[in-house]
């Protein structure tokens, strides 16, 4: 089926070339980092993780969110989703691939990466994160490929596939839970040491991941004749709205615990993020942008009338993505490392090479996504179902009865 990615309009090829170019620039920056060491990044002895691990955290969420399409479709037989499931699964693959790349570029000795496999260490959450991410990627690749192949051959997917699908549903929760455990199990890092971390991660993932998917679907509807169907889009928008409300609720729980208990250790990171600590306040504007973005997105999403307005919806989703990205990306990392174990503050600013490498990895992810989605759309184009809206099909089906 991969040959379907080899035929495309000039626009398609120019887009791939642009992505390839950006990825190459990122790789050049990575060569510099490889030769000089991580000193080219903004990370320090006190803030020893930075932008790369922030992207990992965010993208694991995007990957896990595919389950928000798969679960209603397979556990509740929600037919409107059947058409866009493949897009969600392929987005998950691209996201996990980026996650793995972000871990790799973050390593001081990447050529020793396989030590994780050579010396498996079950007591390390990072070891489990590697296991669950890789399995999740292959599960999605396998399920996506088999369903697409069946669709192309106009047959129903093999019945045994449903066991893999059920596994992938559970697995999606595991990848983000394990990623949350990377943080939530560390003594002395007050911002991370919270039992609600995994739940908060899942809530923010189920809001931001489908939001990114919908934004990409809107783009796809603009540049191709693909139609997801209003019913599917509206249902995803509703899921996003609920997940975002839960996400904000969980965050407010953290704020209550920290400030009502009055325990300084719990307050310091939040105070640092939202009003600055010991005179360090570099991330304060970003956090308030996140607050404003989250609030505004909820204002636009909660009333059904605005939520189902497909002219406004992309803006609401854009604000939501921005807000969750700041909170779970940079906010989570610098908040966790602030204050330092000595109750001092060391600020972190990503450097130009760090940003170039990050953009490069995103370009590789976009490249993978483009090729996978191209294959999926070409199959639907061959079948003549690309412009079909699932609700029309359903109506057709009902009328035939």
């Amino acid at each position, binding site marked *: 089926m991969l040959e379907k990615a080899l035929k495309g309009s000039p626009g398609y090829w120019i887009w791939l070339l642009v992505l390839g170019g950006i990825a190459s620039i990122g790789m050049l920056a990575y060569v510099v980092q490889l030769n*000089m*060491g*991580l*000193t080219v*990044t903004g*990370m*320090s*002895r*006190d803030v*020893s*993780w930075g932008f790369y691990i922030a992207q990992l955290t965010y993208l694991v969420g995007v990957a896990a969110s595919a389950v928000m399409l798969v679960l209603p479709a397979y556990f509740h037989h929600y037919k409107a989703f059947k058409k866009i499931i493949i897009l969600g699964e392929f987005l998950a693959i691209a996201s996990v691939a980026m996650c793995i790349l972000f*871990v790799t570029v*973050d*390593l*001081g*000795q*990447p050529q*020793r*990466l396989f*030590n*994780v496999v*050579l*010396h498996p*260490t*079950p*007591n*390390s*959450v*990072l*070891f*489990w994160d*590697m296991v*669950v991410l890789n399995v999740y990627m292959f599960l999605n690749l396998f399920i996506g490929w088999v369903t697409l192949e069946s669709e192309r051959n106009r047959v129903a997917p093999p019945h045994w596939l449903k066991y893999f699908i059920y596994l992938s549903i559970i697995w999606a929760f*595991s990848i983000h839970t*394990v990623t949350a*455990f*990377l*943080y939530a*199990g*560390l*003594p*002395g*890092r007050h911002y991370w040491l919270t039992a609600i971390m995994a739940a908060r991660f899942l809530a923010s993932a189920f809001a931001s991941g489908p939001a990114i998917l919908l934004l990409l679907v809107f783009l796809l509807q603009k540049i191709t004749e693909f139609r997801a169907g209003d019913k599917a889009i509206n249902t995803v928008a509703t899921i996003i709205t609920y997940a975002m409300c839960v996400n904000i609720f969980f965050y407010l729980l953290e704020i209550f615990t920290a400030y009502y208990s009055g325990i300084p250790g719990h307050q310091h990171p939040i105070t640092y993020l939202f009003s600055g600590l010991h005179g360090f306040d570099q991330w304060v504007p970003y956090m308030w942008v996140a607050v404003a973005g989250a609030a505004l997105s909820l204002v636009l999403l909660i009333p059904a009338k605005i939520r189902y307005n497909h002219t406004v919806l992309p803006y609401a989703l854009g604000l939501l993505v921005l807000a969750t990205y700041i909170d779970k990306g940079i906010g989570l990392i610098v908040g*966790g*490392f602030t204050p*330092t*174990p*000595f*109750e*001092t503050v*060391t600020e972190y600013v990503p450097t130009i090479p760090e940003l170039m490498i990050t953009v490069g990895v995103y370009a590789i992810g976009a490249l993978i996504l483009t090729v996978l989605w191209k294959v999926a759309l070409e199959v639907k184009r061959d079948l003549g179902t690309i412009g079909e809206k699932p609700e029309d099909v359903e109506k057709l089906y009902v009328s035939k009865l």
Partner: protein
Amino acid sequence: MSKTRRDFLKIAGMSALGLGCSALPAAAADPGHAPRKAAQGPAPGTLPDNALTATHWAMVIFTRRIKGPEHFDHIINACHQYHNVPEIPGHKDEIKWIWTDSFNHTFPEKETHFLAQDLEMMDFLLLCNHCENPPCVRVCPTKATFQRDHDGIVIMDMHRCIGCRFCMAACPYGARSFNFANPRPYIDGAKLNPDYPTRMRGVVEKCNFCAERLAKGQMPACVEASEGAMLFGDLDDPNSEVRKALRENFSIRRKTTLGTQPSVYYII
């Protein structure tokens, strides 16, 4: 009561295992000080006869016996020169095995409004605590950081470290440094200790309680340079110097509420 608690922990541990979470059982470990079981340790005939051995190495620092900045420098330099620790300018890429800080930074959980005046002015030595229950060992994905069964030293295998820096996030004592760049240019060639290696860029490092000196029958470099201000010995031996010092003086340890059980004790 304690039985039900233990049962609860057992069940919690088992179900956590069942969920594929393996970090929790370590949390169920007994938090009190229990003598280390005599693990096999080095095979017979693989250690020199004069090697210093113990089942639980620990350090006691008499903070008031250290007299001023020169004394501190003497102790720190003894360690850093012996282990070829680079002197990298600036705070960002800094590497240190043993260093000093104020009372409030060393013992932040013992913060008080009205600290004794002399403590307010004093500095304290900080180094890896060689915890009985080390979080850095728990998180390391390659066993590059591990705890020696036979004497409790928390040590690093520089040949295996992949530089993921998970241990730096996990250590609540800020004891770990990462080689952001090649450290060699920052070591004074004339001061290079030919008996000990340097490190390469991309690996984490920290104090190793001078495991290599103990094997040669020498006390840790800092202890030797401290002229009696620092004691080093076997915590499991009731007659050891460290146990005697702890019996006769009031001592504190850093961040004990976290359950890591540091092996470095401070007599204030």
